[in-house]
């Protein structure tokens, strides 16, 4: 992928203070297209796809949301907490659509590892293949997601 002018505009939207206080890029100095290419390659190496990862994230989030803010056991061995904070965020990829600030914490009781992701993450992975920049508060590493959420193709 190459950094189109549109990507340049999107990358500007992702800077700290434009949409969210911390932004979506963290300390990542790479171009948006490079971040997305690298994650795309990582996803392919694992034999997965963005939509498969997003689908699994959504599945666990829906299961956890049934706990209405309380931690819920999700078979086979997950503990999922879904909660929300005030406000909505627009997607930085310049299209209509506001996303509620709902976050999901998934703990894998077998390995003890956990991941935290937001509804915005699910959307950005599914629709844009974007996992946020290194060091961003809600950066999702594809390999970690696959391991903790036990995503298999």
């Amino acid at each position, binding site marked *: 992928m190459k950094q189109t002018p549109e990507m340049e505009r999107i990358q500007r939207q992702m800077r700290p*203070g*434009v*949409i*969210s*206080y911390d932004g979506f890029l963290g300390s990542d100095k790479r171009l948006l297209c490079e971040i997305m290419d690298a994650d795309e390659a990582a996803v392919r190496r694992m034999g997965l796809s963005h939509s498969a990862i997003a689908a699994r994230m959504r599945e666990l989030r829906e299961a956890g*949301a*049934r*706990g*209405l*803010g*309380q*931690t*819920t*056991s999700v078979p086979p061995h997950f503990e999922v907490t*879904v*909660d*929300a*904070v*005030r*406000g909505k965020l627009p997607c930085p990829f310049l299209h209509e659509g506001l996303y509620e600030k*709902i976050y999901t914490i998934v703990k894998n009781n077998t390995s003890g590892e956990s991941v935290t992701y937001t509804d915005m993450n699910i959307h950005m992975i599914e629709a844009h293949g974007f996992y946020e920049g290194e060091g961003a508060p809600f950066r999702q590493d594809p390999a970690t997601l696959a391991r903790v959420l036990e995503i298999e193709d």
Partner: protein
Amino acid sequence: MLVSFIIAVAAVGAINTLLAILIMLADATIGNYGDCKLTINDAKELTVKGGKPLLSALKDEQIFIPSACGGRGSCGLCKLVIEDGGGDLLPTELPWLDADEQKSGVRLSCQVKVKRDMRLRIPEELFSVKQFSATVSAINDLTHDIKEVKIKLSEPAAIEFTAGQFIQLEVPPYELTDEPVYRAYSIASDPVKQDEIELEIRYVPNGICTTYVHKHLKEGDEVTFNGPYGDFHLQPTEAEIICIAGGSGMAPIKSILEEMARTGSKRKAVYFFGARSKRDLFLVERMQALEKELPQFKFIPALSEPQPEDNWDGETGLITEVVAKHVPDASGKEAYLCGSPLMIDACVKVLQEKGMSEDNIYYDKFA
């Protein structure tokens, strides 16, 4: 040699002094926005020194606008309407204001600087908000992740609040934060007790304030808070009351119930409290005692995932299911909800299905 040394020092000193005087003059003219008049709600007039952010200018005048981030423009709470004199919208405000708010003059008071006379709209109840210094008198574990913190007031020595309101606790700079931050917590104690308040604080991993309270705060520590805030309180009607809470959402409901018990309220009330398993339940004895003090009150705890060792014989299931089961008809009743936004949204839906009008549902979403 010595002479040239002295000359050099004197010359540099003289130049520096001149420049310092120049800067002071500039500060007194260009940097001086003079006294600005703030007209609040067309009624109250204040004169403040210009140049400061509006939030701190108001704070200096003992008007506390709720703010959770301490003026960094990262919480979006300190909104108020500036009718006149606010200047252009700043890039740092835009993420917090939707199109309607931008049109109606809503601004973030921590970002707008006072540079000229301004006309403001501030909700009346904020005028009774004060800053308090206090001492932690007790910290108790309520569950594995919720602590009860009792705070004894020193200056001012008493707080007047309505049951259901919240305060903002100041977290001084420590490992997780370089500047003071403020977090909102509901008061759990009876408003009659004006010299000491109780808070119930649930630990959130990496939460700036909750980590501070759970890992650093000790009995005897000095704390600062401001308040009271919020319009979550019992309505002065005779309608039957349904309270629903989860986790630390217990706090404002407890305050309301304590007040009802003290005043000998005859209103019919039921309180549903949702938790995951027995280890997440707390203050059960106090609630059972309240059932004795209030003849018309019933406490119904519900566990969503009781563990085998809990030997739980009470209600099981999600709070919405338990509410639906116990409340066949909600019309004409009032509901008071506090807890996760997800729980509140789900409960509002259930109550509406049971015939309650949305106007009679009052809630305090934390977050």
